[in-house]
Structure formats: C-alpha cells, structure tokens
C-alpha cells in the first residue's frame, strides 16, 4: 500500500511541468477534508491546478483500470485453471473493440450520451460476447472449461477480423480506431473513474468472497465438488464478475494488454497461490503497475503520448521473463 501511495505522489509530480514531491504531497493532504489542517504551506496556484484538475483524475483512472484488469485476470486464471488465461481470453475485449470500432467508423453518436457513447456501446458488445461464449461453452448443462476456452479463442479471432475489416474500410478514422485499440487514459476525466469504480468494488468483494473455493478449484473441479464447492455456480459468478470488470476497463481505456496476465503471475511468484492473498495483492500491484506505465507513457517522449498498451507490453514482457528465469534458477518457495 505504501508503494501505491508513493507511486501516486510521484506520478502526480512528473510531467511536462515537474513539481516537487513535497509540494504535491502538501496539495493532496490539504484537500483531504479531515486532514487539511496539517498542511498549510504555500504553493503556486498553477501547481494546484495541474495536480488536481489534470493529473489526479488520470491517476485515479489508472489505479481503477489497473486493479480491475489484474483482479479479472486472477479470477479467470483461477476458474479456468489455466495459467495462460487473461481477461481477454474469452473474447470480451474483442467484443468491446467491435463496438468501439463500429462507432468510430460510422461516426454514430447516440443523442444524449455524447462522449459516453463509445464506452457504453463497447461495454454492451463486450457483455454480448460473454453471453455468446457462455452459450457456446455449455455442454449437457455444464460449463466445460476447455470448450469455453476454445469458444473464446474462436470468437476473439472472428471479432478481431471484424475489427480489421472495419479498419480497412475507413480512411480518415483508421488512426482513431487503432489508437483506441492500443489503449489510452488521456483526456478521460473523473466520470470515467466513477463509472468503473462500482464494478471494481463489487468485483473485488465477490471475488474475495470466493477465494477459498477458488483455492479448492486448483485441485480440480471434481475434487472441489467433493469438498462441497458449488462448482457450476462459482464458475458463473466468477466469470460474470470478471467480465464486468474487464468490459468496463476496456470500454473506458481501450485494450490494454499484459496487465491481467502478468500481474497475477507476478503476485503468485512472490506470494504463492493462495487466493486470499492473491486477490488483494493483484489489485494493488495492478494499480501500481498501471500508474507507472501511464506515467512513463505520458512523460517519456513528452509531449507525444505513447499508447498505454505499448508501454505495458514493453515493461511487462521482459520483466516477467526475468522473473521466470530467476525462479527457475533459484529454489522454490521457502517451506
């Protein structure tokens, strides 16, 4: 948690205008209602504007998106019992992308929703995709995980090609579509964070409630059933909740990869497979990761912004490879 706090303050201080860390910390404290008496130093009005109006909303969004994707990834990995599962395995992101691409291509905007049109539609198409995958994956009234994974892969491929098709049709908006796909948190204000927060909160509570059954899942579905776990119900609850978080994150920020896959594994390597630890730590670590990735994305090549998805992949992949090698050469978890 301390890491998160530090990251927040650091991220707020970095940017095209560099602000001293203490100043940022002072501004933040001053604005927390019950702590404002503690800090009453002086700082330029402009600094306060930058921190609160421009950077803080973005920081908040990064935290919420990062936590959502990591939690969803951990949930999917637990219930699909597949370490390669990530939030996009079941095709949710591709579904959301189709919605977004379609809107960008046709320029349709629903009256009354304005700039909310894309997120809302993307969310909707993401959920539709889940419904479709669940239908395809049902066999004899039960959800078979292998079938589910295959349906997800098929749907992902199909929807991906639909998006590519739309990209090929467009001339002017190609950039916009591709840019959306690569993920970005820029120019998204507090409302986006507020929209995603309920899904994250509900998702977190539900998943943490399922931590022990998720632990038992690791032994196998049949073993878990024999120990009294309601297997089918748990599967559906976890899948739906994780999909809601993923669809929300993607709708708001585009398809940012590597977070949902890498962060839970990182936590596993550091803290073990117990879901009671894995879930909260994944959320925290995911938030921190996303925060730093976004900070790098907007400051490294300032004033150009590198797409967030690119940064997460660039950092995530090599770091993960390093961790895997260290694990192989070192001993396993201490007994």
């Amino acid at each position: 948690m301390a890491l998160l706090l530090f990251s927040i303050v650091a991220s707020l201080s970095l940017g095209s205008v560099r602000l001293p860390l203490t100043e940022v910390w002072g501004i933040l404290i001053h604005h927390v209602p019950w702590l404002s008496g503690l800090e009453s130093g002086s700082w330029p009005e402009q600094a306060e504007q930058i921190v609160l109006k421009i950077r803080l909303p973005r920081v908040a969004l990064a935290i919420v998106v990062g936590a959502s994707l990591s939690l969803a990834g951990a949930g999917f990995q637990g219930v699909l019992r597949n370490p390669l599962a990530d939030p996009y395995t079941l095709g949710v992101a591709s579904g959301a992308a189709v919605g977004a691409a379609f809107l960008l291509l046709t320029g349709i905007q629903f009256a009354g929703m304005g700039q909310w049109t894309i997120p809302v539609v993307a969310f909707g198409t993401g959920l539709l995709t889940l419904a479709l995958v669940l239908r395809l994956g049902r066999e004899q009234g039960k959800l078979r995980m292998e079938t589910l994974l295959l349906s997800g892969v098929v749907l992902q491929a199909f929807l991906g090609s639909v998006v590519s098709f739309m990209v090929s049709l467009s001339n002017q908006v190609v950039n916009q579509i591709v840019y959306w796909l690569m993920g970005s948190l820029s120019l998204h204000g507090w409302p986006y964070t507020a929209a995603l927060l309920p899904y994250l909160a509900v998702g977190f509570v539900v998943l943490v409630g399922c931590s022990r059954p998720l632990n038992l899942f690791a032994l196998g579905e049949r073993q878990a059933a024999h120990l009294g776990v309601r297997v089918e119900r748990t599967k559906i609850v976890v899948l739906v909740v994780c999909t809601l978080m993923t669809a929300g994150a993607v709708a708001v920020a585009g398809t940012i990869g590597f977070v949902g896959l890498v962060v839970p594994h990182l936590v596993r390597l550091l803290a073990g497979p117990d879901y009671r630890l894995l879930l909260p730590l994944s959320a925290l670590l995911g938030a921190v990761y996303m925060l730093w990735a976004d900070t790098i994305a907007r400051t490294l090549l300032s004033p150009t912004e590198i797409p967030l998805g690119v940064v997460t992949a660039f950092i995530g992949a090599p770091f993960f490879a390093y961790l895997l090698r260290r694990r192989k050469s070192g001993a396993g978890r201490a007994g």
Partner: protein
Amino acid sequence: MKAEQTSMLAAEGLGKRYEGTRVLDGVGFSVRKGECFGVIGPNGSGKSTLLKLLSGVETADEGTVTFAGRTLGAFGRKELARRMAVLEQETLPPVGFTVREVVEMGRYPHQNWFGEEAEDADRLIGAILDKLDLSRMAGRTLEHLSGGEKQRVALAKVMAQEPELLLLDEPTTYLDIGRQIQLMDRIREWQAEAGLTVVAVLHDLNLAALYCDRLLLLHRGRVAGIGTPAEMLAEERLAEVYGIAPIVTAHPALGVPQVLLRPGGWRGTDD
C-alpha cells in the same frame, strides 16, 4: 439383544443414460455401517458412473440413492461433504500449495464463510500428518512431491474431512503393490478406529477379496450378483462376466478366494 445393522448407503432401481446409451439399469444394493463394500466389474460395466451417482456429482435418470436415511438430493453440497468423502484415482495436480495447506482444504465443508470452525482443527491435522508420515514434508509444496507421497496427501485430505462414508474410485490404479497394500491397510485402520463405512470401486479382484466384506459384481450396467468374496469370485461367474477362464484358489494364509490368470481363452463378452 440383536445389534441393529443400520444401512449407511442404499441404492434402488438406479438407471443412467448417456446420450441415448444405457449405462446403468436397475441397480440396487444396501451398504451397512462400518462395512467395506466393493464394486467390481469389467471395463464399461458402469462402475465409474455408479460412483458418480453415489457421490452426488451426477443425478440418476431413474431410481434413488439414500444416504444415512435421507435421499441424496435432500443434502446440501457442503452438508454432504461433511459426511461423505471421495478418494479419486488421479493423483493431485502439482499445485503450489504446501502439504499442510492441501490437507487443511479437507476441512472446508466444516468451515463457515470466514474459514473458521466450531473446534480448532490444528490438532486433528497434526495427528493425521503424523499418522501418514507426512509431518516432515508438511511445508513442502505439492509440485515437489513424488506420486506416492501425493497419494498419501490425498488420503490425509479425506481423513481431515472426517466423513462417515468414504467412496474410493479405483484408488490403486497408479500404485505399485507395496503402496497398494499401504493404502488399503491405512484405510482399514481408519475403519477400525472410526467406524468408517467404505464403498470401493476396484478393478483388482484379489485386492477386493482381501479387503472387502461384500462385493457387488456389475456387468453391462446391471447387478450380476451381491455377496461375499467367496460367493462372487466363483470361476463360472467370472468367466461369464469377464470372458476368460481364470482359476480361483484359496489364499494360503487367509483363506479368501484369489484369482489366478492364465493366458489364452479370451472368448469376448459380446459387448
């Protein structure tokens, strides 16, 4: 005063179909408390399906299963798991949990939402680990254990569940003769100590004869006979069900029937 022999588990008229093929037909039997009841039969006779119906993971198309006086469907999943445990034939997957953590998972049916129980189970788990010689490796993760060690952990886990009825699904399939005896001996010890009832699906007829009080012979989904090993392991009966002509002889030390195979003579069983 005659001791009442209570029926722990009973089945009546069980039938099950998979995609149109009849797998079980009119299966009925009753298992007494404290008994070791074996289910034997050739491949495809429906043994695994029967076990799935008995453990509640699948529901029968016809017939009923009664456990401790109530129909199986009347039990909640956790409630059932508190009284009935299943030992599978597959070894536990190489997960990153430690031996102790896996054995603790056996307590799940007895724990509430927060993972707490009425009585602290640490002592019970410690005793089980000692008994199965697992204390030394309590902190090691499963991925670093051998197959035989993992099988002991699986047994420890079901012991931690403290069931009244134990279902065994061909648990000796992947074990060598030494480990087979070790496992069955430990289960028999457990039965003597706790009055445990055991229903074991076994493909090894000799093992079944050595450890089971009564046997159910299953043939093409139907009951071909229920009785003591001496009654069930008779040459003509085995020839009819298995399609070979084995020799049945008495065990030199224990007197129970043992089946000796001889090459040749496979007549087929027109399956």
